[in-house]
């Protein structure tokens, strides 16, 4: 019997090539999208699962004045002190300091951005397997280095060739390669290209100063340790080591532990800039995948049901010949499963084909493990669920035919069935319209953000990081030489470029009893000029007032407002950074607010002070000859930091980086919205063909009686487009609501203009109209004799 069903199913597929194509194409796209999302979600939730000791590994977090978000950055002495004070609970503590260093082998030098300076137990605590070398001893000797496979190949051509060779680090250390680690997988929150013993740096300035923050501390707890109880003891620990500092600076620090597995999904911020995932994105992706698959399933249900009319004879006959209802139900569900299986096989092919593109959008390589069980479980799950979901309605519908009616072909798909089908089309198009609205709003918001006047000049500004000793030591020379160059408009050295790092500090302020928290920019006197920021009260820093360096600050308009002053009132008031300043400083000027943070965040109070802390140089080029300007910067850089390769970026590129995940969502959503409407239209095309066939005779009679082609096209299209219209009406308010919610993410948002909704409605309606018209026109221009002859 099974063989017979299979035969019938296969021949039916072959006989109705268009229907089969619509179904298979729709399902294939739907399943492919689902698989892509499944792989993505699998990867997201598998982050750090490979760490065998992961269950007992925690990252130590430092809270700051009860700020909502703690930071993982600590200083050097924490780890040994924690190990010493909590011997019963903490088995192992490993410091990990992300770093950026110069590495030289022979004549080639690289500025490596993913260097980890760690304690020697790093490879013991974390499961990053070594291809060569011994994990327990690789970092024991301070003069050793472990490279990843890729770095080893980069420096020495091959893994075997690298072992035992020497690389020079920061023109200071000669390090011998003692191990080669496998490349860090994409599902790890840690990411490094090389690991160097931290011992080389423990005598650096500030390394052992408790209040500093520059490294992560990971601890391995004992099996029996009660984490909550341990965290309770951290209060006394902090008082013991930090009590003095806390009192002096008016700060309150706390310590807590985050389990390794939870690190990845903690919110990303400039205070915790390791790789983070976003559960909202996961959720959005998941919903889209389900919606697209639903659209494809609905096509299947609709097309199979209307095809029932053609197959009614078969159903009737099978019943006459003794088939019971459940025989037929299983036959049709079986066909549906067959179709889904074919689509699944095609999807796997399509997926493999699309993987490179998908990885590019995601920004990292997803690893598809074809030997892992979950992917097969997923595929089987899809086949069974989609097979049943898509096949059940047609199955029950078809099998319920009365055999007499079915045989006579007098079968009518009742009003109920037709209503149900229309309802399904409404669902499909609601989803499509909704996705289109979402896409347009995201694109609109992104272009709004892109074109928003940020309050500073971002054009022709080159960012050069002060990220090595040479450039750091020679930064003043670097600046002076550039200032003398005719291609350069101005140069400013600062702690963070707009969109970059702006640390929080506590201030004592005139007339305020409580410490006041604000963001800080430490910059030289050219800051305002280079960025083209507007002074709204007072004056800029000036070399005519030599005491400005020690006595002056600028604040922004928001800072003045938060302190209860007008810009004019603020000028002349004193303010003191509790951590950085020995003396009070005067506010000499107030600058207009400029968006130094991402537009997702509200404008914050900013204090611009000339204190030391230079991490980046912004070089404003003169308009006209950008190439000559960059060549000039490179020239000077190579003179002052001879060994280091010159690297730069543009300030206006910062945008793409800042909104990377939003841009990614935009791309993926656009693609998915197109796919959704494509699959929905495939279904509509199928329905249109069916209607045209069903009303073939009616059209003939109407034409004989004098109806024009135009009238017939309208007649046919009207009914088909009604559900599309209803869908639009449903999707518009839902889309409005959802996108309004999404925009809440941004402090600065575009308006939900009426035209977006009109455009989405018109787009959907237009595409649907074209789809339906193609069929309707064909039916309408057919010779009526043909249709009437069939009687």
């Amino acid at each position, binding site marked *: 019997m099974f063989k*017979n069903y299979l*035969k019938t199913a296969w021949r039916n597929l072959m006989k109705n090539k268009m229907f089969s194509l619509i179904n298979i194409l729709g399902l294939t796209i739907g399943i492919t999208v689902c698989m892509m999302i499944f792989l993505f979600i699998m990867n997201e939730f598998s982050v750090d699962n490979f760490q065998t000791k992961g269950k007992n590994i925690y990252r130590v977090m430092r809270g700051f004045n009860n700020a909502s978000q703690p930071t993982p950055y600590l200083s050097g002495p924490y780890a040994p002190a924690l190990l010493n004070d909590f011997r019963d609970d903490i088995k192992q503590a490993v410091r990990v300091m992300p770093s950026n260093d110069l590495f030289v082998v022979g004549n080639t030098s690289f500025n490596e951005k993913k260097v980890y300076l760690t304690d020697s137990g790093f490879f013991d605590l974390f499961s990053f397997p070594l291809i060569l070398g011994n994990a327990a001893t690789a970092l024991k000797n301070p003069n050793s280095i472990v490279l990843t496979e890729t770095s080893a190949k980069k420096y020495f051509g091959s893994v075997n060739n690298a072992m035992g060779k020497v690389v020079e680090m920061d023109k200071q250390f000669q390090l011998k390669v003692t191990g080669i680690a496998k490349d860090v997988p994409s599902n790890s929150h840690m990411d490094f290209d090389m690991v160097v013993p931290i011992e080389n740096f423990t005598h650096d300035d500030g390394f052992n100063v408790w209040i500093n923050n520059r490294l992560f501390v990971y601890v391995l707890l004992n099996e029996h340790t009660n984490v909550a109880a341990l965290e309770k003891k951290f209060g006394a620990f902090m008082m013991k080591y930090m009590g003095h500092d806390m009192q002096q600076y008016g700060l309150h620090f706390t310590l807590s532990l985050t389990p390794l597995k939870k690190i990845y999904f903690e919110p990303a911020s400039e205070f915790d800039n390791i790789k983070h995932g976003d559960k909202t994105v996961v959720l959005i992706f998941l919903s889209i995948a389900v919606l697209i698959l639903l659209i494809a399933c609905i096509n299947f249900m609709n097309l199979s049901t209307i095809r029932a009319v053609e197959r009614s004879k*078969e159903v009737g006959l*099978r019943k006459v010949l003794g088939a019971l*209802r459940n025989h037929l139900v299983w036959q049709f569900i079986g066909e549906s499963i067959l179709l889904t299986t074919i689509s699944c096989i095609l999807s796997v092919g399509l997926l493999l084909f699309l993987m490179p593109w998908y990885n590019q959008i995601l920004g990292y390589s997803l690893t598809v493990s074809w030997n892992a069980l979950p992917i097969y479980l997923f595929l089987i799950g899809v086949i069974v669920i989609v097979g049943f979901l898509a096949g059940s309605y047609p199955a029950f519908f078809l099998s319920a035919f009365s*055999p*007499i009616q079915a045989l006579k072909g007098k079968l009518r798909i009742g009003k109920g069935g037709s209503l149900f089908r229309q309802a399904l089309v409404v669902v499909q198009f609601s989803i499509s319209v909704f996705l289109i609205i979402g896409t347009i709003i995201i694109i609109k918001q992104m272009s709004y953000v892109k074109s928003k006047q940020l309050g500073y000049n971002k054009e022709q500004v080159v960012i050069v990081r002060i990220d090595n000793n040479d450039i750091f030591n020679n930064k003043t020379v670097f600046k002076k030489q550039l200032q003398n160059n005719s291609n350069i408009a101005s140069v400013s050295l600062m702690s963070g470029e707009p969109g970059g790092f702006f640390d929080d500090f506590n201030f004592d302020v005139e007339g305020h009893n409580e410490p006041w928290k604000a963001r800080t920019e430490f910059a030289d006197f050219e800051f305002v000029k280079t960025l083209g920021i507007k002074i709204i009260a007072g004056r800029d820093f000036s070399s005519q007032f030599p005491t400005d360096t020690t006595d002056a600050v600028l604040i922004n308009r928001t800072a003045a407002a938060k302190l209860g002053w007008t810009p004019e009132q603020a000028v002349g008031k004193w303010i003191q950074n509790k951590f950085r300043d020995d003396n009070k400083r005067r506010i000499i000027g107030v600058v207009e607010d400029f968006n130094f943070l991402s537009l997702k965040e509200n404008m914050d109070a900013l204090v611009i002070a000339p204190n030391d802390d230079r991490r980046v140089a912004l070089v404003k080029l003169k308009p006209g000859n950008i190439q000559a300007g960059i060549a000039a910067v490179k020239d000077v850089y190579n003179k002052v930091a001879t060994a280091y390769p010159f690297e730069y970026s543009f300030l206006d590129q910062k945008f793409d980086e800042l909104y990377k995940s939003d841009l990614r969502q935009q791309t993926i959503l656009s693609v998915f919205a197109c796919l959704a409407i494509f699959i929905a239209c495939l279904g509509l095309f199928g329905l249109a063909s069916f209607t045209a066939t069903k009303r073939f005779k009616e059209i003939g009679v109407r034409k004989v009686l004098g109806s024009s082609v135009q009238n017939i096209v309208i007649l046919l299209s009207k009914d088909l487009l009604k559900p599309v219209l209803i869908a639009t009406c449903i999707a518009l308010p839902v889309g409005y609501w959802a996108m309004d919610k999404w925009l809440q993410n941004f402090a600065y948002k575009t308006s939900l203009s009426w035209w977006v909704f009109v455009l989405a409605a018109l787009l959907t309606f237009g595409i649907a109209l074209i789809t339906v018209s193609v069929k309707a026109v064909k039916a309408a221009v057919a010779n009526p004799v043909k249709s009437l002859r069939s009687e």
Partner: protein
Amino acid sequence: MIKIKDLEKIYRTEEVETVALNKLTFNVNDGEFVAVMGPSGCGKSTLLNILGLLDDPDGGSFLFNGIEVAHFNERKRADLRKRNIGFVFQSFNLIDELTVFENVELPLIYLGVKGTERKERVEKVLDKMQIMHRRNHYPQQLSGGQQQRVAVARAVVNNPKLILADEPTGNLDSSNGNEVMQLLTELNEQGTTIIMVTHSEHDARYSHRIIRMLDGQTVTENILV
């Protein structure tokens, strides 16, 4: 074999009530060949549907081999049908997606007959109907006469006691029609009971007895043999 008494069937729509069978009573004996005739709308097809257990009567009694079947549920009807009744239709009603062999095989599949036995029985009946050479063809590749021979083959492959034929020659030219009638006669001679609905006086003369119907009732019965 068949005893029906006061059989009623009424079709209702919202506005109209049509009496298709109006207290119809007659019997058919084992091995008989009965023709049912009458104008369009007299209830012939309704009668055939009820006799074939494809439809429920609204009243009266229907004994099939002595068993009251008027109110059997679907499962019981399907079971009785597939074991005892073969159907031949005016429009052949072959499944287009199946070959000649597969069409004829279908009733045996639903009877649960094993594959090897199925093959044997199908080949035997195809041979008998002289369409063995067409076994791998699809219905649309056959002439009308050939299609009806396949339909007859399918109707007899499970050795039914009763064959119900609904205008079996209606879509055939006279020579093909005669061939089919010849086939039915042979089957009847081998012991199969046949009830045939027809418009054709010519075809009706092949039967033993003609029942003439009008407005859901029998009006006359002519015994020919």
